[in-house]
Structures are given as C-alpha cells and as structure tokens.
C-alpha cells in the first residue's frame, strides 16, 4: 500500500494570510509581546491591579491592603502586553515593506525559549523559599 503524505499539505494561501503586512504584524506582535510581558514582570507594570477578595479593580499597580486580601497583577501584566504588542505590531506595518521583511523570524521562536530561564530565575523566591 502506498500513501501520499498529507502532513505538510497546506490550504491554499489567501492574500490576507500571506501579505507582507500581516507577516510584519504577527512577527512583531510575537517578538514585542514576549519582551513586553517580561518587562512588565521585571518592573511590575500591570495595566491594573485586581483585588479578588473585595472584587475591586485599581488602575496600574496597587498594593495588597490590610483586610482586602491579596492583590493580583497577572491580569494587568497580560492586558498591558495585549495592548502594547498589537499597537507596536500595527506601527511596524507602517514601515516600508523591505524594512518589515528584515525583522528576523528567528526571534519569534528564540525569544520564548530564552524567556524560560528568565522566568525560572524570576520565580526564585518560590524555589529557594526556606
């Protein structure tokens, strides 16, 4: 029996899915998104702080207050990332096509991999907690 491979078969490209501007946008979003998330984490820059015990949202960073339970920053970091990276991605699409095409694709997969050791380091308080 002989079977033709279907694994690499791809649907026909549409103009939107293969345009240079879309490529620039998605590549920029991936690169900037990972960077922005790490920067948010490092400098603690949430778009907002959520206090789940009292169901209160506070703009930007806010401390956990006595009697109000813990403060959650992850939502804020993620929202910051989801706002900033598409904006930068859109701005990148305004660049000349030859400039957009020069954004190295390798960063799309290399940055997330490099981020993993950084995240492990960032969480060291949990690994080495006495």
């Amino acid at each position, binding site marked *: 029996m002989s079977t033709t491979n279907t694994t690499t078969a791809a649907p026909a490209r549409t103009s939107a899915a293969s345009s240079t501007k879309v490529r620039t946008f998605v590549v920029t979003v991936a690169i900037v998104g990972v960077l922005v998330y790490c920067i948010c984490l490092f400098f603690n820059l949430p778009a907002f702080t959520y206090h789940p015990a009292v169901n209160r949202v506070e703009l930007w960073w806010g401390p956990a207050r006595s009697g109000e339970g813990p403060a959650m920053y992850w939502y804020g970091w993620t929202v910051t990332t989801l706002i900033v990276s598409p904006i930068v991605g859109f701005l990148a699409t305004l660049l000349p096509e030859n400039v957009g095409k020069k954004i190295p694709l390798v960063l799309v*997969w290399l940055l997330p991999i490099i981020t993993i050791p950084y995240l492990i380091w960032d969480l060291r308080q949990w690994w080495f907690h006495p």
Partner: protein
Amino acid sequence: MDLISVPTWWTIWMLFHLIVSVGLLGALTHQAVAVMMPVRKVAGPVGFVTRFRAVPAPGYAFAVCIMWVITFILGSYIYIKYRTYIRIPIEQAGYWKTQGFFDFKEHVASIGLVLLPAYWFFWKNAQDPEYDTARKVLTVFLCVACWFLFIVGHVLNNTRGFA
C-alpha cells in the same frame, strides 16, 4: 436557595477549562509530532504511530488558536477563586514550589497567547519554506508549553481543588 454550591460552581468551570485543554493538548501533540516526524510515504500496513503522525497538520492551526484562547479565558476566570481559595492554603501549608510552578504556568500561558498570531500565520503559509523552521519550533514550543500547563494544573488540582 442556591441551585449549586460555590465550590461546585467553580469546579464546573474548572472542568470546562480541563475539557478544552484536553482538546488543545491532543491537537497540539498531533501537530507537533506531524511536524517533527512527517510521514512521507508509507508502504504496507500503517501502525498507530504512523497514523498519529499522518494528520493534516495545517488544519489544526485555527482550532489550536481558538482552543488556546478559550482555555486561557476559562483559566483566567477560575484564577479569581484560585487566588483566595486555593493559593492561600497552599502557602499556609508551605508548598512553595507548587506555588512557584503555578506562577510559572501563568507566565507560560500568557507568552503562548502572544505567539498565536505568528503560529497561525506560519501554518497558513505552510508551503512557504521561509517559515519552515519558525513553524516547526513554534509548534513544538506551544506543544511542550501546553503539556507543562496541563500537568501543573492537574497537580495543583490534586494538591487542593475547589471542592
């Protein structure tokens, strides 16, 4: 009278989170195996592993994106209850590494989210050799990330669930 208790409410949402994540895990695993070990030509009867690899991988990309987003939204929702009802007792019990792995999980989930547009684009252009390496590595990265998220979530639920 409440129809369901508060713990049951959150457990139901966690089960939805689990169910969608299982679909995501299956799709990403199929796709990652297909991209790493593509079936070129099969002579003779095909076995389980070959069938597992011989899926039409590009067709999974959109579903993976949708399932990642849904799983992410459901996880974000149950995180509200997790933060007060589960994390505080975990900290009180001194399970610091378990807590660390949860924080790791939330970061990985967010990073995966911003990679989805590029992942979708690379699969939409699967016949373009320029994107081959990026598509393969990104797919395997998302697959490994998804397994990590799933296992950490599972262990955390075993440590202390909503019920």
